[in-house]
């Protein structure tokens, strides 16, 4: 293999990295095109494609911490659920008493007008994003003392505990949950409305992260991933960077939670808001499958994973968990660097990575020592 000279990676000029290379732009354009045409070509699958965009968002936000920063969180689903509940409480609470509404499971006399509905969704989503970020800042202050497997288990515990605590909290409906305000329009109208929001949320997440990784912040969290003690010894504000990374994750996950709650129409703590063993694990599996620590890996992983998941649910019902389990096992044992990670090692020039032609190929890097 010859050493490849490609200036994708480092650019003289104002920015350290070009925001998007030509290849990136083509793939990105294809993705956006699919997003626009998808529900038009496959109207029966609008809900599934909307969930696909949420999956992309899940994998991308997990990768900020797990891939770029080396902190494997198993509890990021917490911010999804928190966002969902914050959004619901705001949507209801803006116009009527939350406790009274939940105590009769939304069956009381109160009805939302269309204006109230749209205002509620808009304000609710903003509150979900900001509220989840603030929760991330507060919780980060507690759990960022943990590293490696302890961090993973600590965050998992956090998400599990949240599900149980919300289940015992009567004001938000406890275990019986909250019926969401009803969309003022047809079923198709609702599908398209939330499809557009999910699509925009996923694209916004991607573009924001693409920009974020091109700043000093991107290098700093990579440094924390590679050697946090060294980063501290060099004076990097490690806690500051870790907190921001988690808050960014939580910001977009909070929006995703608010959207998903409205799409399903009914939220409850264990299966919908804090589904640790489904969405919570999927976001990790998708990022690993595509290639953690890369920008396209989580996107690709999410798309593949979601297609396989939907296909097995439709055609091999009863075997769907076996299939997903098999993918995860193959991925972890034979393919740890994921698809994009594998491509980076095979064709580093595509990614603007230079390798020493004289050095024998090294064993695939397994990421940071845990």
């Amino acid at each position, binding site marked *: 293999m010859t050493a490849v000279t490609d200036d994708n*990676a480092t650019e003289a000029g*104002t920015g350290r990295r070009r925001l998007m290379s030509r290849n990136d732009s083509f793939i990105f354009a294809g993705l956006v095109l699919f997003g626009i045409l998808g529900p038009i070509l496959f109207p029966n699958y609008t809900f599934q494609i909307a969930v696909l965009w949420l999956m992309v968002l899940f994998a991308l936000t997990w990768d900020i911490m797990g891939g770029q920063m080396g902190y494997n969180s198993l509890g990021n689903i917490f911010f999804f659920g928190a966002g969902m509940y914050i959004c619901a409480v705001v949507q209801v609470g803006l116009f009527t008493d939350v406790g009274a509404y939940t105590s009769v499971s939304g069956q009381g006399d109160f009805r939302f007008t269309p204006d109230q509905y749209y205002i509620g969704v808009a304000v609710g989503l903003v509150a979900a994003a900001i509220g989840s970020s603030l929760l991330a800042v507060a919780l980060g202050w507690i759990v960022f003392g943990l590293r490696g497997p302890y961090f993973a288990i600590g965050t998992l515990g956090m998400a599990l505990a949240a599900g149980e605590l919300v289940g015992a909290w009567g004001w938000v409906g406890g275990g019986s949950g909250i019926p969401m305000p009803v969309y003022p329009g047809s079923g198709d109208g609702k599908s398209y409305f939330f499809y557009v929001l999910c699509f925009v949320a996923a694209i916004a997440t991607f573009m924001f992260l693409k920009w974020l990784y091109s700043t*000093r*912040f991107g290098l700093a969290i990579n440094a924390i991933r590679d*050697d946090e003690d060294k980063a*501290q010894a060099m*004076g990097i504000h490690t806690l500051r960077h870790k907190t*921001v990374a988690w808050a960014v994750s939580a910001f977009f996950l909070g929006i995703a939670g608010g959207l998903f709650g409205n799409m399903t129409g009914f939220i409850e703590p264990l299966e919908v808001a804090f589904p640790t063993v489904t969405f919570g694990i999927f976001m990790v599996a998708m990022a690993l499958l595509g290639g953690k620590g890369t920008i396209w890996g989580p996107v690709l992983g999410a798309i593949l994973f979601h297609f396989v998941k939907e296909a097995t649910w439709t055609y091999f019902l009863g075997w769907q968990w076996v299939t997903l389990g098999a993918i995860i096992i193959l991925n972890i044992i034979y393919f740890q660097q994921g698809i994009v990670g594998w491509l980076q090692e095979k064709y580093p020039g595509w990614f603007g990575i230079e390798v*020493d032609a004289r050095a024998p190929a090294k064993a695939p890097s397994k*990421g940071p020592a845990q």
Partner: protein
Amino acid sequence: MSKLIEVSNVSKAFGGVIANNDISISVPEGKITGLIGPNGSGKTTLFNSIVGYHLIDSGSIKFKGAEISKKKVQQIARLGMLRTFQQTRIYSLMNCVDNMLISVPHRNAAFFDMFKPYPAELLEKAEDLLEFVGLYEKRKLRAGDLSFGQQKLLEFAMALMNEPEVLLLDEPTAGINPTLINGLIDRLKRANTEFGITLFVIEHNMRVIMNMADTIYCLAHGELLAEGAPSEIQNDQRVIDAYLGAH
């Protein structure tokens, strides 16, 4: 001549093992100070105490006259005191230039500075320093793919990028090919004279330290055994005994 680092009566024990006992040393500004001693004599412990890696049991450590013994690693690093590690530490999955860029001083970093891009001057500076240590040709390679010796050079360049006032080097020549050592000594001296960085160096290689240092401290069994100019240390019977194990 002002004392940049002033260590007074510092003791540090780990359980029953007294790693440092009542150590007092000072590192004068602009000079190269050496720290030698047999294995296990407490050199790295003293380094760790100075840079805030752990708290000391008693005594005081001052940097530019201000007490720093209660401060944390990052705070001390941002004051302008940096250390390199015995087991070389670089960011292995990032390329050399990125390793350099992230090593800029964080002394005055405001919260929103983290969202800025790197200006072209910094890239130039990073490349100049890589040139200085002889790694310019390797600048786009992943740091983890460099040889051990090259990683040491990179770590040194990263430290220079941080513009410290004082640099604590823990065995800078350990594991380096003997033919490259002269070049490294030359660069360390130039860092001292040209960049004006005060050096405090742990070194096992007597030829290197005698060649470089203005003053040398010798530790043995956690206690300060001797201090003086290289020629005095070389002829000090206590130092010779400590190294030959006649203690």
